[in-house]
């Protein structure tokens, strides 16, 4: 395009024509759109535009010259930048705005406009020069950036909230566990201690957090084994699991502790911190020891009178008079058999640990269930002649089970019924056949049990406090019964009411089909 006659300027001097043409060429080669308006004319019309302005605005020169610049805003008139421009024009100031403009085809573009007044020697404003750049791309990027930033901020806020939630959740877990937990920095200074630690070792948070582990509570944690753990073992085998430490603490006494330690190896702010979990197993170990002692003493004490009984029995058997009745001889034989069974029971008591690990071997065979029940009742009857055991119903069944075990269960239930109901002399036994099970119930009219006793009756060594006071016993019979019935895939349960007596019942599958191979 020939731009030499773009403007209709009155030249101050013809000698400047060449320079002027050069200047016009320079303006036309600018990438910025440039317009000049004549302030002396009505409505400040555009009197010059360069090629870049035509390119940016999409209007040809003939549709530009003579118009006021506002046509560029099309219908988008309410932009505050327009006020700013108007103000500047009025006051003859230069100004810089970013304003939404529209191309001829209606497309929006962001116009970065620099506007400056041109003044004559008297200070009157003759023209305005506008330099404009299409900054739509930059604007888009900026806007995108702002949006991204807003999204990011929202996300960070959400994540922070979630993090704070889960941190609070984790903290409440740590505060709730019944195990002492310490977090140590790499120099063994305590960073945090949970409630259980403070409670177990009778300290408070202030005197614990921030203190070196060994210096805690007047150096009472300066334990050689603990130093071994932290200095020797942890660096080479991380984590350390179930490390036993015994220590005599000045105020709380001797404690047996099970330590688990883990050093954080992940890079980051927690690196090299040490988690130390301290479980106080003093009581547990003591209980285990007492249980073992108890079992030894109990079996020893039970075997002592049994030795005497067995001795006398043997003497009697060797001195049966020749004219003795068959009944007399048979009775002696039965007593011998029961003494032997008692001895076996006591031996079994020592093998309670076997029951715990489920190592009982069952010797299953078919037997006449009703006959077995009768024999047991007969046997018990002779040892408790005052009590009347009333048998109701029949199962009419052959059962495949370990008879000696079932005898043991029934014996136990019957002796309990007699033992715990000394004032009421009736015990009811009912036997029935229910589907492919036999069912036996033993009902007494004695002390009865409360809800707590009912729940715990089948626990090993459990004895209700009332029973404990009035009757001797070890709290093991029902536990063994329950285990035996379970091993036979049956169930044993109790219905009872305080003061009205108890009914113990068990079911037992009749057939081999039910055998799960145990």
């Amino acid at each position, binding site marked *: 395009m020939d731009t030499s006659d773009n403007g209709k300027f009155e030249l101050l001097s013809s000698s400047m024509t060449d320079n002027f043409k050069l200047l016009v060429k320079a303006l036309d080669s600018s990438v910025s759109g440039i317009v000049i308006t004549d302030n002396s004319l009505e409505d400040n019309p555009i009197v010059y535009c360069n090629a870049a302005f035509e390119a940016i605005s999409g209007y040809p020169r003939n549709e530009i010259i003579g118009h006021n610049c506002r046509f560029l805003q099309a219908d988008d008139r309410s932009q505050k930048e327009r006020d700013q421009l108007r103000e500047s024009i009025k006051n003859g100031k230069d100004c810089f705005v970013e304003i939404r403009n529209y191309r001829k085809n209606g497309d929006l573009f962001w116009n970065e406009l620099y506007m400056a007044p041109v003044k004559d020697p008297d200070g009157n404003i003759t023209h305005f020069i506008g330099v404009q750049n299409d900054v739509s791309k930059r604007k888009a990027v900026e806007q995108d950036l702002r949006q991204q930033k807003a999204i990011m901020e929202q996300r960070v806020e959400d994540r922070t909230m979630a993090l704070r939630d889960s941190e609070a959740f984790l903290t409440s877990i740590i505060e709730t566990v019944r195990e002492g937990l310490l977090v140590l920095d790499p120099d063994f200074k305590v960073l945090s201690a949970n409630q259980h630690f403070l409670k177990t070792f009778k300290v408070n948070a202030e005197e614990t957090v921030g203190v070196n582990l060994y210096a805690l509570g007047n150096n009472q944690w300066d334990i050689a084994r603990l130093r071994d753990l932290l200095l020797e073992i942890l660096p080479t085998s991380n984590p350390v699991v179930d490390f036993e430490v015994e220590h005599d603490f000045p105020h709380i006494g001797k404690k047996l502790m099970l330590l688990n330690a883990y050093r954080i190896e992940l890079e980051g702010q927690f690196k090299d911190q040490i988690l130390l979990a301290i479980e106080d197993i003093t009581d547990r170990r003591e209980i285990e020891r007492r249980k073992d002692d108890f079992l*030894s003493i109990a*079996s*020893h004490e039970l*075997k*002592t*009178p*049994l*030795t*005497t*009984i*067995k*001795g*006398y029995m*043997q*003497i009697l058997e*060797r001195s049966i008079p020749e004219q003795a009745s068959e009944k007399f001889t048979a009775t002696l034989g039965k007593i011998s058999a029961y003494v032997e069974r008692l*001895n076996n029971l006591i031996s079994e008591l*020592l093998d309670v640990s076997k029951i715990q690990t489920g190592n009982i071997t069952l010797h299953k065979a078919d037997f006449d269930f009703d006959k077995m029940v009768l024999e047991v009742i007969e046997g018990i009857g002779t040892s408790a002649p005052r009590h009347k055991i009333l048998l109701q119903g029949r199962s009419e069944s052959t059962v495949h089970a370990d008879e000696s075990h079932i005898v043991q269960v029934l014996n136990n239930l019957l002796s309990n019924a007699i033992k715990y109901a000394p004032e009421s002399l009736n015990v009811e036994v009912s036997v029935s056949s229910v589907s492919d099970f036999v069912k036996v119930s033993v009902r007494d009219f004695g002390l009865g049990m409360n809800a707590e006793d009912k729940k715990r009756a089948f626990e090993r060594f459990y004895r209700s406090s009332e029973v404990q006071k009035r009757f001797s016993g070890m709290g093991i019979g029902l536990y063994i019964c329950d285990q035996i019935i379970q091993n036979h895939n049956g169930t044993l349960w109790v219905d009872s009411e305080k003061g009205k007596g108890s009914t113990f019942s068990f079911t037992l599958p009749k057939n081999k089909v039910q055998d799960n191979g145990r």
Partner: protein
Amino acid sequence: MGAKKILICDDDRGIIDVLEMVLEETGHRVITETNSLNARAIIDSEKPDLIILDLWMPVLSGDQILQMIRRTPETQDIPVIIISASRDGAQIATEAGANKFIAKPFDIYDMVDSVEALLA
């Protein structure tokens, strides 16, 4: 075989009674004691031919008495049978120098046989 003197020391009266009954049937003289603290004095004064000792007795245990017997020149050769219902009884008895260990509850006639064998 002539009558021999047997000392039985057990804190349980029942066991003493039943042992006394069968051992006297065999023609031996039986001395019994339930208080283990008196055992030493009886051994010194009566000089029994055989001693039957329980392990777990209050104050002085069977293995302690046995050690005393073995340490004293006059009594160290007296045959001693240890009887006990405790699980580690056999080991304790052997270590203390018993001639025989019999676990409770025992067969009373096996006991008689063991006594006769040691007295022979």
